[in-house]
């Protein structure tokens, strides 16, 4: 095995296209996710401009439906999901003391599948119209929608969904198998725990989506009748399948944000996480209960009072572990020395915002009251409070916190605080009034509203808030651009971190840990620091390090499926077959070529170690 010499270094673009390094894949996820986040944001702004006054004609009705569909789909599948994968990639292997994920090749494949799925979906804007049936794509609106839009939706999500599924499996295996010596499950940092539970949710939630999308695409492309009531199909099957996936998806998104918040709150309070085991238990419980509540999205579809009551009570139960988390964060700060860095500001802003989203969630769990809330702006307010106020604020906290680890530079704190305050105030200004708009009778997904219904002022306020959020986001991008021109940060541990990822020098070596660290408890690095040690105690002598080879195959496999999907959409079966054949050839090559990876030799590692010690 050790006969394989060091591989030749690839440079520039080729390096990024072929990388299987979890750190680089994390950066790719971050950039791609950030890109789609901007697109989704622009779509949101166009909608808020349309709704700034009654009977506005800024965009047409058809266009508005495309915007709302694309905004939701893009933000959930192509912004929030990849941003979560960005941090999971960048952080989890480091936090558990691993040199990479379990399947680096699969990791790269997961990224490229996601990326081409997103590109495919967004191409619909240029190729005959975007999907317009909502991100939920309820049949028969979705099955009968004219134009290719919904086909782009189905196949775009299908392709990226495969990427997400294999990504989730990869992290499950990584976390189970690749923890450093001493890193027991109950010593894992909470972010890793949430990444673990989220990956488990992905494993069980995405297959139903895959099946549902297959059925939907068969209905559309091959005139099947799964959801066609005229021929014995049933539209409710789609709703069930979609929400059996869709509700866990919410927890897939929020749990890693909980994890990031837990790390940030503990670090900047200078305290260990209060009630760690309760936090772990709450995380697992939320993940478990997340599969038991999907019908609360369907209270008004007529399943009857028995089903509605059961799912109402199950939904309310989720408030309990979530409350446990909130109080544990508060008591982590209790007695601490809270430093209000930008990352901590996001975490501190997250807590009340998420609680507000949580309490409206309990209100929505009441079926009879939900008949009023459902599909009104009240729901729009609620899920933006949990997804922007929860997921996105958590991700921003994580971004400012882990940015130095990912890019070796610290983001500017002043700009960061401007970003926080504009975004945070803008967020509440946008979404708080929407609770009342819903209660005052405004349905969601409306491209306009008539004047004289007392909905004008609150819509105006909401649109102004959206502009503030946009300004905040622009400040973030300025900050990122400025930071790129800066030198490396002076310390590889800028926050006085507690977990393993901060024990690694700048820049992070390709192999992460020259010697696998020995973990002696929760907050492994903090334990060594308080014991007066310079770094982690190694668990092994310096030796050759086995590394995976980069490969272009994941990229080609994904392009193959991308081409196949285009063929399906435009009914050119030869193109479809060519695309699928291309993917199969790549898979065949991957199977037939023995790739043992390469070794970084002991001498190189030792040289690196010396260079670091300065």
């Amino acid at each position: 095995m050790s006969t394989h010499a060091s591989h030749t270094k690839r440079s520039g673009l080729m390096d990024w296209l072929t990388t299987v390094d979890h750190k680089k894949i994390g950066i790719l996820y971050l950039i791609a996710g950030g890109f789609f986040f901007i697109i989704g944001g622009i779509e949101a702004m166009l909608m808020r401009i349309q709704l700034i006054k009654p009977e506005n004609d800024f965009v047409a009705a058809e266009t508005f439906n495309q915007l709302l569909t694309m905004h939701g789909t893009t933000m959930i599948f192509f912004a929030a999901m990849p941003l979560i994968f960005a941090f999971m990639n960048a952080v989890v292997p480091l936090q558990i003391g691993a040199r990479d994920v379990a399947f680096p090749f699969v990791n790269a494949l997961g990224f490229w599948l996601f990326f081409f799925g997103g590109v495919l979906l967004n191409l619909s804007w240029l190729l005959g119209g975007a999907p317009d049936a909502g991100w939920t794509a309820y049949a028969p609106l979705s099955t009968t929608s004219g134009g290719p839009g919904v086909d782009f939706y189905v196949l775009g999500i299908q392709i990226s969904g495969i990427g997400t599924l294999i990504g989730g499996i990869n992290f499950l295996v990584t976390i189970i198998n690749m923890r450093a010596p001493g890193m027991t499950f109950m010593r894992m940092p909470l972010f890793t725990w949430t990444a673990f539970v989220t990956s488990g949710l992905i494993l069980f939630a995405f297959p139903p989506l895959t099946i549902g999308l297959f059925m939907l695409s068969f209905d559309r492309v091959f005139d099947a009748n799964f959801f066609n009531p005229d021929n014995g199909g049933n539209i409710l099957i789609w709703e069930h399948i979609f929400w059996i996936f869709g509700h866990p998806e919410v927890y897939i998104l929020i749990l890693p944000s909980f994890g990031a918040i837990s790390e940030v709150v503990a670090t900047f309070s200078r305290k260990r996480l209060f009630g760690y085991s309760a936090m772990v238990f709450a995380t697992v419980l939320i993940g478990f209960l997340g599969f038991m509540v999907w019908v609360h999205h369907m209270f008004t579809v007529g399943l009857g009072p028995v089903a509605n009551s059961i799912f109402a009570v199950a939904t309310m139960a989720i408030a309990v572990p979530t409350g446990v988390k909130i109080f544990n964060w508060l008591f982590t700060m209790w007695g601490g020395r809270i430093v209000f860095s930008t990352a901590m500001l996001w975490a501190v802003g997250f807590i009340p915002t998420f609680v507000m989203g949580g309490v409206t969630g309990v209100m929505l769990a009441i079926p009879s009251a939900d008949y009023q809330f459902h599909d009104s702006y009240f729901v729009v307010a609620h899920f933006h409070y949990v997804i922007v106020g929860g997921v996105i604020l958590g991700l921003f906290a994580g971004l400012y916190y882990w940015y130095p680890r990912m890019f070796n530079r610290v983001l500017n704190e002043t700009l960061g605080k401007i970003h926080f305050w504009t975004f945070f105030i803008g967020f509440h200004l946008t979404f708080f009034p929407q609770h009342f708009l819903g209660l005052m009778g405004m349905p969601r997904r409306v491209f306009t509203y008539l004047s004289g219904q007392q909905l004008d002022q609150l819509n105006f306020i909401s649109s102004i808030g959206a502009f503030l959020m946009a300004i905040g986001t622009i400040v973030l991008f300025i900050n990122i651009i400025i930071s790129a021109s800066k030198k490396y940060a002076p310390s590889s541990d800028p926050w006085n971190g507690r977990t393993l990822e901060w024990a690694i020098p700048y820049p992070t070596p390709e192999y992460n840990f020259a010697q696998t660290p020995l973990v002696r408890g929760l907050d492994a690095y903090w334990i060594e620091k308080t014991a007066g040690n310079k770094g982690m105690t190694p668990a092994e002598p310096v030796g050759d390090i086995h590394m995976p080879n980069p490969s272009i195959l994941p990229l080609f496999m994904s392009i193959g499926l991308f081409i196949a999907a285009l063929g399906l959409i435009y009914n050119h079966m030869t193109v479809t077959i060519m695309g699928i054949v291309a993917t199969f050839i790549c898979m065949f090559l991957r199977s037939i070529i023995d790739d043992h990876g390469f070794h970084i030799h002991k001498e190189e590692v030792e040289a690196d170690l010396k260079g670091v010690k300065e």
Partner: protein
Amino acid sequence: MFAMLALLLMGCGDPTLSALLPQGEVATKQYSLMVLSLAIMIFVLLVVFIIYVFVLVKFRKRKGDDTIPEQVEGNHLLEILWTAIPILLLIILAVPTVMQTFDVSAKDKPKKGELSLKVTGHQYWWEFEYPKEEIITSQELVLPVNTKVHVELSSADVIHSFWIPSLAGKTDTNPGDGSKNYMWIETGKKEQVYKGKCAELCGASHALMDFKVKVVSKEKYEAWVDSFKKASGNATGNAAEGQKIFKKNCLSCHAVGKDGGNTGPNLTGFGDKQRVAGVLEHNKENVEKWIKNPQKVKPGNNMPNVPLNDEEVDAVADYLLSLKLQ
């Protein structure tokens, strides 16, 4: 804060549309449960916010303080406390929740004394059938005060959702015979015209799928039923000219009185309506605007452009506006 202030200035919205100003039994019940849940939730919010503010003020790092705080692992009593208290609060909420879920649900047949109504959603209009009275109308529902109405809901095309915020929460209208839904409404004691909405994305003009619910006195309701059943759709003057054109061009989809098709809205009593196509102000100009180019008013709807010249459109508009029941 701004939003709160704006809200206080505005009250709780349009009294014919807002779920915060409920009328009738169902909406009132739903409102009371909203208030109960909101009260519990505000209590939770207050507890969290008070601890939150206290912690942020008291435990912020002071200048020059570089001490390391005690690394507390946790506290069993606290964990039990903030598990048990929320469970208690949720039980307080869950009991009336389950009770009311059954209370506001409806069986597939009307109970004794309930007015029976069939609602069918179409892209983008509502069809209302009174099976006992043998009346089919559209867009404007007429109901007597203080009456329980049993509603059967279905759809002719995609999923819609039938919502009268002032009177009751929404229920979806599903296509397909096996997916019919049922709900009940109580009309309250006020004579009032309420606004109704479609609450499920149903296509391009989903936002324009408004309807009206006219709650009138029992006498007026009886009179309306009588005159509806007697309506002949005959007219005089320019309107009679319009009637001829209507018979030739429109009757295959639109019924007036007993005659006509049912793929489009029934136009009996059109002259009494509050809105043209549910959204435009009710005047001749708008009727003509609609007939000339329905797609411009409600994009994606199923009405074709009927090849009529300006005079013919004028006559048809006159005819339609002459169709009054009172």
